């Protein structure tokens, strides 16, 4: 599996332009549905003009990049991922945070997330873990929802009750 991802990453010079080409082709096709008022279009260009131009140019440049990559052998030079585990852990934690934010709420989720995330990426000194969690959570909660009145999600059920005690 690891080798599969490494091979895939090594082919980035081909895969990234190819992804651009495929996505652009689909988006170019969708642009045919954009129609504006006739008068506006008659005296200029319609809402479909720029999406078509940009997607077409992305396809063209993608093809050019693939041509260049194939000529060079297709494998790109890039630095290897030093610690792929932490990369995947971070992505997983990001997805979990965005998903749970509306359910658990900012006040409850943030300190738990900070502590759990730092543990998961390998922070072991408890002084840092505790200090960063407390100081940073207090700072975020004080500044954003309390002082700046930004309506960060309060969560649902019991979490909402807890959040309401703070802001």
């Amino acid at each position, binding site marked *: 599996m690891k080798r599969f991802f490494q091979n895939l*990453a090594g082919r*980035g*010079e081909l895969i*990234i*332009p190819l992804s*651009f080409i495929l996505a652009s082709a689909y*988006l170019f096709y*969708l642009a045919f549905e*954009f*129609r*504006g*008022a006739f008068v*506006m*279009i*008659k*005296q*200029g*260009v319609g*809402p479909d*003009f*720029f*999406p078509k131009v*940009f997607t077409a*140019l*992305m396809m063209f*440049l993608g093809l050019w*990049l693939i041509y*260049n990559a194939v000529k060079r052998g297709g494998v*790109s030079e*890039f630095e290897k991922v*030093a*610690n*792929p585990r*932490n*990369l995947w*852990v*971070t*992505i997983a934690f*990001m997805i979990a945070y*965005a998903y749970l*934010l*509306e359910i658990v709420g900012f006040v409850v989720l943030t300190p738990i997330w*900070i502590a759990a*995330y*730092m543990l998961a*990426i*390998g*922070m*072991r*000194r408890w002084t*840092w873990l505790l200090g*960063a969690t407390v100081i*940073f959570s207090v700072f975020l909660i004080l*500044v*954003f929802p309390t002082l*700046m*009145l*930004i*309506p*960060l999600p309060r969560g649902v059920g019991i979490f909402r009750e807890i959040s309401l005690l703070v802001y």
Partner: protein
Amino acid sequence: MDLFILGAGELFTPANIGWLLAGVFIGLIAGATPGISGTMMVAILLPLTFGLGPLTALVLMTAIYATAVFSGSITAILFRTPGAPEAAATVFDGYEMTKQGKPHEALGHAMFASFLGGTFGAIVFMLAAPQLARVALKFGSPEIFALILFTMVAVASIGGGNMLKGLLCAFFGLFLATVGMDVITGTYRYTFGVPILAAGVSFIPAILGLFAVSEALRMVQGAVSETRAIKKVKTVLPRLGMMKRLLPTYLRSAPLGVFIGALPGVGATTASFVSYATAVRFSKEPEKFGTGIPEGIAAPETANNTAAMGAMVPMLSLGIPGSATTAVMLAAIILHGLRPGPFLFIREPGFVGAIMLTAIIANILIIAVSPMFIRFFTRVFRLPIGVLGTVILMLCVVGGFAMRNNIADVWMVFLFGIVGYVLERHKFPLAPVIIGLVLGQLFEQEFRRSLILAHGNPMTFFTRPIAASIIAISLLTLLVPLFRALRRRLSISKAK
């Protein structure tokens, strides 16, 4: 000069000076915190200013505005997380300098350029506000379109040594700017039934994701318990020799910034990108931009502060805001019973003079107060990498959410973070994506508006001298490197 004397007479009261200092302090903190922009801070404080007199209210707001534009660069340079959109262009070279262990130097350049730019803008504002506003209004849609075209081409051409990748990324950014409701016809484009997409892809989550989250993803792959090495320096200000080297950049960026700022609806973010692109275009070593050179910081930082001051020109002299923050300030002026426009200069010269003087003092205070802030922020930089990565991620979440109070923007931050990480690993430059996204809407609008005004005649871009000249320079910027590469290839094949 009369304005200056009358303004001084009105401004120098203990209450006004106190609010000015408070404004500088609030502006520095707000600008340096992702998620809190100068505009947001001014808007939040608007109801609180009802209890103050009109001048005191405007003194507070002007001080916040002037300093917040600068302090956005602090987090942009240290954490690759622009505190304000105006500082997005500062990331390109500022963060590279930080990676080289020179954050103090980078911050010093930003501070000095901001001070110079802001003071220059405020002085121009004082001497020639009505005249500048009239000239700016003559700069129509074709000229703005040409200016943005030039910026796109110049920045894509630096593309990390690969112009094709740079161009692809620029078109990707421009494409992202087409998502949402078309402002001219009201047609929904690429919204896929997602309500938030009707308002388009906001560039704040995109900037935070592409720059900051992607960097956090890279950071946590290293030794998370270690701290970064920072070179020790005695002063944060650039030395005299360096100032001499940067003089052409300052001289180019300051007038450019003040003029772009004076254009209604364009603003300091655009000014910083245009200025960066101009610095690239006029540099003898354009390939060095994006690798951590002082010119790459001085150009956007001079321009964004001058533009912020320039945006106040049409606000006071014509009653037309030049940026989002000045729109809020305009509302404050009206709510306090004053009427902006040419008559304000005749009826209330002391008021106008005091605002202009506040802008100058606030910019001078950037030099006086900022070193203390910079010292504090560089200490934050000494946190272990794991903590720093966590701090960046959390600030991105809050910063992304705060712009539209929508959870979809948090998803957007993370999505752009992953996209940015993948693109950068394969040497696709991120700067053109951001520039395309930030300027894309204006690019499309001004192009289409120009055509509508010219009854569909595309010659409108070539019959107006300013627009035609800028388009010609853009085409040269694009074609000359391609031509050179072709000639090099031909000479190699001939030699073989």
